[in-house]
């Protein structure tokens, strides 16, 4: 009886700590409060020490945000950037995961492709902008190429690492149960690597945002990167910040959606589900 109630007390207090933390602040409120604190600090610092054209206050940025939303420019540029990201992301994930699985499963492919991988992963995508512009022009082709390139590498490396780290006993168990090479790949190596592949895709998504903005800053007349660089030319620093905040928010939301999708559709493939 006393043991049972002691257990209940422990459980109850554990729940309280998780929901409220040590200071008694509800857990969900902590990030909200920290964001509010940062905005407040931003307001004080920018209003006190800087002219608006160098560092606009959050209030000015908020007004600019309303303006950009009302004019429809922000939505248009966001959609353009997101479309570029998704096209390159999907293509890069497909190529990267495909090649990574091939390299993981076939030693000949691994040895043959390894020099290109080792070389290519030190070549930042943005350094390929010039040849991309020459080959694919200033339109969508060059952006698609660069984002695909970025995503391919990071997904490929993560996929390869995931396949190569499948525990040996998982493979041997299937072999001793009579698995053919194809069964071994499809029923053991692929499902055991899925989590690592998804992790690579999440990182690839982040890098895609970086790449698209860099490309749009140098060679584009639409997209969030263009919005930022163009607003800087006109000293619309508040709009620059609108672009930056939009990027961060879109990236965050995309990642959350992607994570939820993975959890929903492939939760059983997480190593510790």
């Amino acid at each position, binding site marked *: 009886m006393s043991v049972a109630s002691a257990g209940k007390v422990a459980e109850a207090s554990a729940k309280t700590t998780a929901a409220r933390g040590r200071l008694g602040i509800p857990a969900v409120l902590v990030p909200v409060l920290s964001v509010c604190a940062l905005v407040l600090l931003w307001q004080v610092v920018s209003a006190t020490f800087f002219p608006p054209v160098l560092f606009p206050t959050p209030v000015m940025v908020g007004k600019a945000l309303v303006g950009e939303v009302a004019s429809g420019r922000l939505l248009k540029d966001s959609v353009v950037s997101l479309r570029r990201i998704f096209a390159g992301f999907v293509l890069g994930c497909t190529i990267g995961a495909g090649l990574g699985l091939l390299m993981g499963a076939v030693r000949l492919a691994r040895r043959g492709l390894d020099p290109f991988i080792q070389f290519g992963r030190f070549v930042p995508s943005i350094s390929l902008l010039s040849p991309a512009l020459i080959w694919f022009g200033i339109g969508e082709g060059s952006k698609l190429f660069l984002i695909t390139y970025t995503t391919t590498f990071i997904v490929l490396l993560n996929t390869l690492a995931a396949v190569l780290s499948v525990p040996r006993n998982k493979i041997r168990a299937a*072999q001793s149960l009579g698995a053919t090479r194809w069964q071994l790949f499809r029923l053991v190596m692929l499902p055991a690597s899925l989590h690592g592949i998804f992790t690579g895709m999440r990182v690839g998504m982040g890098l895609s945002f970086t790449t698209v903005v860099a490309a749009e800053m140098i060679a584009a007349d639409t997209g969030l990167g263009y919005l930022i660089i163009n607003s800087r030319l006109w000293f619309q620093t508040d709009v620059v910040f609108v672009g930056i905040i939009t990027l961060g928010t879109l990236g965050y939301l995309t990642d959350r959606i992607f994570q939820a999708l993975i959890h929903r559709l492939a939760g059983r493939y997480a190593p510790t589900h």
Partner: protein
Amino acid sequence: MLKGLSLEIERGELFCLLGPSGCGKTTVLNLLAGFEQPAGGAIQVDGRPVTAPGVERTVVFQGDDSLYTWLTAVENVEFGLRLAGVAPERRRATAERYLDLVGLRGQGHKYPSQLSGGMKQRIQIARALVCESPILLMDEPFAALDAQTRSTLQDELIGIWQQTGRTVLFITHDIGESILLANRVGLMTAGPEARMKTIVPVDLARPRRRSDPAVGALYERLADMVSEEVRRAGALR
């Protein structure tokens, strides 16, 4: 690692391979399973040479990383039947039967992460049994379990072995375990160049109890031989 090691296991026998750690017990199992190839010498099952892993020699591994975490318990157990192309309903029914045999009735829908260490080893055993392979190779399957669970699983293994009539090679470094389980205990010398030191028949009635004086006497005898090997290995190093 091994040199001049010679070993013959009878059909239907439960043979325990005992030896100081690092002497190459697992290497013997890997050779028999076909995971590794010998540099010289031959390995035969029923007179046929072993060159690759095969479904007539299934393996129970030490530790649980050989289980498929994305499959439920019953899906793990039926894995070998799935590989063989057995129809889903039939393989599910067979897998359920083997879950019963290892005492996991009603636990089939759980994932390995939801099961205790002892239950995971039971799933491994069921998975290895399901293909009706005549030979079961077990690599210290109970080494990582607590004493209570280990003792239970030892009893259950004897029951399963008697019920199914499989030939079992059981690797262990636990002298007591080998005496409780085996028809014969093969003791290996310490490496390098390990070989069989001696093979000791265990002619004791089952069920065996650790408290039985005959078990105790055999334990002393084997323990002396093992410590001799450990000392010799220490002197070599």
